[in-house]
């Protein structure tokens, strides 16, 4: 256990220090959200209707782009070799890395949501609904995105390839995340139904993600 907590603490520390990318994700989220009104027009009624979708898309892209370096940084400096060799099961180490990434890069997105909700003319309930669905859904994004991040190590390229690999996998999360937020705002479905499916998706990805990532790392090293 202390090995995993050491890994989590190290990754968070690196993310927050100079050169770390934790806050750039939030900045990206902010920028993408601000771009939307320029494309669809500044009509507040329209923006508040599109708001949850815009925020979800922004959070999806932001959490995906920051995932790029999840394993490649450790691969480049040789840390990954030692993590693979260690007595800690690789699946658990992967899960710990993803958790650290979510804490450092995912949580700030949720904290930023109320501010962005203000820009998109969302009222209190709507903002709360979006923040809640992001809280339940972003772990799923991180833990499925991790699979792509592990493949990026194997294939020696990340960036756009990672996005192309992972974006289709995150479609269910997007569907139920936006559906739950819309349900809370205007109905007609109850909030609980899509929200529990969203939570289920997160739980499934918590299991599948680490195994798939560990498998691809094991076979991809050379």
């Amino acid at each position: 256990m202390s090995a995993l907590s050491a890994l989590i603490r190290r990754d968070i520390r690196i993310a927050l220090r100079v050169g770390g990318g934790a806050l750039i994700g939030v900045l990206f989220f902010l920028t993408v959200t601000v771009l939307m009104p320029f494309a669809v027009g500044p009509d507040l009624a329209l923006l508040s209707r599109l708001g949850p979708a815009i925020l979800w898309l922004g959070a999806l892209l932001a959490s995906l782009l920051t995932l790029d370096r999840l394993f490649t940084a450790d691969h480049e400096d040789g840390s990954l070799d030692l993590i693979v060799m260690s007595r800690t099961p690789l699946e658990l180490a992967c899960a710990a890395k993803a958790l650290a990434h979510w804490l450092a890069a995912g949580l700030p997105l949720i904290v930023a949501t109320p501010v962005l909700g203000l820009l998109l003319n969302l009222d209190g309930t709507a903002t709360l609904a979006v923040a809640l669905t992001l809280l339940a859904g972003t772990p799923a994004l991180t833990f499925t995105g991790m699979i792509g991040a592990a493949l990026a190590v194997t294939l020696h390229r990340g960036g756009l390839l990672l996005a192309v690999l992972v974006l289709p996998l995150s479609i269910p999360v997007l569907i139920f995340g936006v559906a739950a937020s819309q349900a809370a705002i205007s109905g007609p479905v109850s909030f609980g139904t899509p929200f529990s499916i969203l939570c289920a998706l997160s739980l499934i990805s918590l299991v599948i993600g680490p195994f798939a990532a560990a498998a691809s790392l094991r076979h991809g090293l050379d």
Partner: protein
Amino acid sequence: MRLSGQNLKCVRGGREVFSGLDFSAASGEALAITGPNGSGKTSLLRVIAGLLMPAEGTLALEGGDAELSLPEQAHYLGHRDALKPALSVLENLAFWHEFLGGEPRDTGKCLAAVALDHATHLPAAYLSAGQRRRLSIARLLSVRRPVWLLDEPTSALDTAGQELFVGLMREHLARGGIVVAATHLPLGIEARDLRMGGAG
């Protein structure tokens, strides 16, 4: 304790790097893997470390901990130092100490053993190549593992650093450890020679 490999064959990217390779090293013995560039010294080390799958052959560590696999009982010191420039020298070492499951042990003493105890709180980014190498060597000291797999361990070190490292290897061997080192420089300790390439 005895580390041995039999009939090892390694294929990388469709090219056969080596085949039919046998080796063994007992407690207190050092094995120096020598040979020209591209003869597969690093590949052999990575095969022993479990980071590459051998195409054929078997590896065994007799007399080790039966519960643990060979890589779990080995230290690997590769070309890359596994250091994070944003973290301080001590944070880097303390992380590996904790992650690799070392017994409670004074990490400060390990830093002193590689003459880095004055730089404890400086970011690892400020270290020179030789100092970075010393810091990774401190990792070998902070967690006890019977098998040391070393890839060109002395390449970045100055003479003082090399002497210091020879002393540390001697201590490790005297405690019954095993050293397998890929090198093109003399190791500085009595070692059995495993010549790669040429002879096949």
